[in-house]
């Protein structure tokens, strides 16, 4: 299964992950 997030954020938003990275609930995905 898959979860797709689509969201509006300021252009200063930056992802803190890389494609292929393993993540767990609560891990940082990105921040402004």
């Amino acid at each position: 299964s898959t979860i797709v997030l689509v969201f509006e954020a300021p252009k200063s938003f930056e992802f803190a992950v890389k494609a292929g990275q393993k993540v767990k609930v609560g891990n940082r995905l990105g921040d402004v």
Partner: protein
Amino acid sequence: LISAWTQTPTKWYPLPLAVGALLLVMIQYRKKVARAEKEVHVDHEGQEIIKLKGPWQVHVLGALPLRNMSRVWGYMNSVELPIWIRPYGFRLYAYVFGCNLEEIEPSDLTQYASLGDFFYRKLKAGARPVDNAVIVSPADGTVLHFGTVENLRVEQVKGITYSLDALLGVERFDPGSPTSPTSTVVEFPPAGDMSVVNDREFANVNGIEYSLDQLLGASTPSTPGSMTPTLERSNSDSDIASDIPKKHGAQIDASVEQEGSLQETLAHDASVAQEMGVRPALGEHKRSTSGTSVKEGNALYFTVIYLAPGDYHRFHSPTAWVVEKRRHFVGELFSVSPYMAKRLQNLFVLNERVALLGRWRYGFFGMVPVGATNVGSIKVNFDAALRTNVRGRPPPPGTYTEAVYSAASPLLNGQPLTPAQEMGGFCLG
């Protein structure tokens, strides 16, 4: 080797014409397929018609009864197992799929009656520390892809994109159009124990105090227009009507008899909000359903997280946000493994999915759990009416059933969620 290379005589044969012709046909066919992949067919309303596109493996899969297979798989995994076999069976599953049995709750494996139960296991409290970033991961898994949404197209993997409108659904109010989605609006009795705490603009969500700015942001959020014209509270959308199903278009105006209580409730909300100095959702957060794009200085981002069979399969809230509505798209149940994501274009808009739409401090926020062959059922804790992976032929892609959560909290006009709060999960079958 040298003497064989130098002394072997070279004989020339004329290639039969057929081989050349076959080669040309092959080249033409590949060119035609490549062009067909690129083509986007639109219906009379300009909406993209979602079709199965991809290499022959995808069409073979498309011919299989995936939904029936998924339901049989789910039935098999709901069969109660004898108690003595459970520890061995679940340890084998954990070994094959790499589950961490130390962190599950309850840790006694005999307490899981079936594999389906074990698959929908909980975690021990504190097993997942929550980062203080604005967006945290909603699930355990692998980040398949992420980036910004350009021209309302989301990149599935490098080079393959799909339409954001197709993923989230486009609200059409003209019931005449044959493709207008049968969006049945189902109301819910107030679910959350959302209560305004005091005049410090705090809201108490399930026992945790959150300032409304944290929940909704200081600024008035807007919503990208073509994607999800947000809920505009009109008298035909009475939020207080309890679970009276309504249909867009042929609007069963169930709100007429509710009119009185709706006005009373709104007046009560507004007076409470006034007293407490808290903004009612109706005033500042009423957003136009016209083509407002994302706010100046903002952009639309997306992230795709793939949950492998051994991962913990409940999903949590990625941030503090308010879910205003959900759109349930009954679709196919293709595998969503990275292998398929790289080959099957429109995978996430063909599959069964539940688009949870709402807002957060910076504007629009959407979260879309997408089902797959082995995990066809999607549960949302605050939506008891949702039924996924039900028997029957799926309607054409793009058709959805809609439900609004505005009764959960009239003040916030939706179901408020805090970061990492459990929202629901995926079940086998």
